[in-house]
């Protein structure tokens, strides 16, 4: 009985990792190349952009919010950096300036949510639309290319065997983990999502926490945009379109409660990888792209449903 409930608890808590393992075993059995070093590195490289943004999204969702503008910020970062470099700015300063601007756009989300009392879903829906427009305006609606390719080292380089974007993602997750689990700020993030009023009455500035999480999300979306740009070496106003959905899916699959206050960033890594493994595996198996979408939607329901059902079982057991 004790062992049974222990196993059940483990399943309830880490079931998502089991899903990931099952998927890997399945694709490994169906495709001989799936477990090759090259392919595994490939999967990691493909999820890097979504992974970086997912860290910021985890902060936002933990406070009970949501950020739909991440994809548009990626687009802005992509064309803005490209334009700056095309204008002769060095890659270093162009990236730094872009990250600053993207953080400000994140802060803008926070301002709308905090000062205008607009629900995050609506606030970031508005900025998603507006910022995508700005990305097109900056680039004149066309891809921006022809700048010096010093930045490509960021997206295409390796440190030993590991692609740089993967390292950036790993560092982002590490920073996110540290921040959420070992700092005062992290505790407040959980507090705001768990019970905003109790947090406020404990003398914590809820607004400051919300400003911070949206700024973090903007900054990391900018970083992801720069990584994406350097991988393809061309600024795309359309870059990151639809990424918000991939990112939110990954975070939710990772078990972060959409109502805030509960979730573990370690499992978000699993969520991100599930998305990547699915894409990669289905491409290896030559599955039609439209079918892939159907499968992804199904997996979201299945993964979260599995989680919910095991939670309920745990409660009534």
């Amino acid at each position, binding site marked *: 009985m004790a062992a049974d409930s222990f196993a059940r608890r483990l399943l309830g808590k880490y079931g998502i990792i089991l899903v990931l393992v099952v998927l890997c075993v399945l694709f490994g059995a169906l495709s001989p190349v799936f477990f090759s070093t090259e392919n595994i590195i490939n999967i990691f490289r493909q999820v890097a952009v979504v992974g970086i943004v997912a860290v910021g999204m985890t902060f936002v969702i933990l406070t009970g919010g949501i950020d739909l503008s991440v994809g548009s910020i990626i687009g802005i970062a992509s064309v803005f950096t490209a334009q700056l470099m095309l204008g002769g700015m060095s890659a270093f300063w162009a990236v730094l300036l872009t990250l600053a601007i993207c953080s400000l756009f994140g802060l803008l989300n926070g301002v709308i949510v905090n000062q205008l009392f607009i629900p995050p879903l609506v606030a970031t829906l508005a900025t998603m639309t507006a910022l995508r427009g700005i990305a097109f305006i900056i680039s004149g609606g066309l891809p921006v290319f022809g700048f010096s390719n010093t930045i490509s080292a960021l997206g295409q380089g390796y440190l030993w065997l590991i692609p740089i974007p993967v390292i950036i993602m790993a560092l982002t997750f590490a920073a996110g983990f540290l921040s959420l689990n070992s700092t*005062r700020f992290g505790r407040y993030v*959980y507090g705001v999502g768990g019970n905003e009023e109790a*947090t406020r*009455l404990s003398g*914590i*500035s809820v607004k400051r926490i919300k400003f911070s999480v949206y700024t973090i999300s903007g900054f990391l979306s900018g970083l992801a945009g720069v990584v994406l740009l350097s991988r393809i070496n061309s600024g795309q106003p359309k870059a990151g379109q639809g990424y918000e959905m991939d990112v939110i899916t990954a975070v939710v699959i990772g078990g972060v409660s959409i109502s805030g206050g509960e979730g573990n960033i370690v499992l978000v890594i699993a969520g991100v990888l599930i998305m990547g493994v699915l894409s990669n595996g289905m491409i290896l198996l030559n599955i039609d792209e439209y079918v892939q979408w159907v499968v992804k939607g199904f997996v979201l329901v299945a993964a979260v449903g599995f989680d919910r059902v095991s939670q309920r079982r745990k409660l009534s057991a």
Partner: protein
Amino acid sequence: MLELRGITKTYPGVTALDAVSLDFSKGEVHAIAGENGAGKSTLIKILSGAIVPDAGIVRLDGLELGRVTPREAIRLGISTIYQEFNLVPSLSVAENIFFGLEPMRRGFVDKKRMHRMASRLCEDMGVELDTHARIKDLGVAYQQIVEILKAVSRDARILIMDEPTAPLTTKEIDVLFEIVDKVREKSVTIIYISHRLEEIFRICDRVSVLRDGRNVATKDISETNQQELVSFMVGRKLDEIYPSRNSSPGEEVLRVEGFRNGKLKGLSFGLRRGEILGIGGLVGAGRTELARALFGADPLVEGRILFLGRPIEIKKPQDAIRQGIGLLPEDRKQQGILLGMSIKENISFPILKDLSRLGFLRKKREKALCGELSGALNVKTPSLDQKVKNLSGGNQQKVVLAKWLGTKCDILIFDEPTRGIDVGAKQEIYSLLTKFADEGKSVIMISSEMPELIGMSDRILVMRNGSIAGVLEKDEFSQERTLMLASGISEGGEAFDGSR
């Protein structure tokens, strides 16, 4: 009519119910009393089909019931009215009563007939209620009445009421009890769960006491008294629930002058060092609003605060905390605690700044400090990492208290300190408060429970309609005087109502 035999339910580490056997007969009001954690909620959940017992038999009219699901319970005529109501706020009274069972005509809801049926039901039960009124426009008392009507309309044979009077005023309780009487006349069995012993003696026919998951006694109301019930509940005689103390309040530490906002109509008072200042009044008199304004949780339009004679600014909770003021809100679950977080994380929450270096938490220190506080307050838990939602109301309240003691505050504002708390924990809270005041600190205690107000306070300030109706010194304390001030009845017995 309803029999429970050997009902047992265990959770990891706790036996919630231990072979409980109970009999409920037709048309009786049967009270279930017991401290928090005695197993009352588990019992309700089993009867309403929310959880399945590990062992035991439930018999209805001599027939053994198998596994009871919530749907099955309703079909059998078992209705439960929880503390959180199951009503749709935007729908009307009639629509709520017949929700899911609307009278139909040619595929559409027959609204006329529905309202006629609802009106007839109201009349039958002696309730005056507009069946077109929307639930969200009704007070809590009437919402509860709608729940009862709903149950009655569904031919409930057994009605379980969980702490029905907790949110009600004295007058509303009278209305509720009249309806309970009407329901009883219809041969419905009422299982009545309450902490308030006076009520049990007012309307119940029999009472069963649970303690630590066991049924320790079932008695006819006429054969027992409050003292005996309390001793059954705590397992020991309880002579003096309020600690005696020789208080000698010192100089004035805090002065409130001309507080005014939407709910407060310009009130002033002082608080002395080492004093427990009770604040009485009816629900809606503005007591909670006063507490929140003083703590900076709600804005003031006008008014100022003097701290040791110096004016201070309190615009937000941070300011109040910096001045050494703590607030334990009335609505513990919504405002006092973080249910999903652990005991440790709750206690350390306001003082994380002192428990971290460069933003990083010093977890060992945090653990040591929280362990000390929760130990000093006797929080019953196997581990500090236990989530607060798994604790009983009394233990949750102790966690909130520990949180504020951790901030080393000098003034505690305590809004309904013992709401939803069992007798044993109440006593512990009282002695903690007394100890706090004896250390030369001050307490503002808002309470709707008259004995508590009189037993604990050094001075009682009675509020009515957003202003102070009167202040009673210790030698003037009496329930009658407090009530008269609170309801605006002058000494001569004539009613006057200042504002309306």
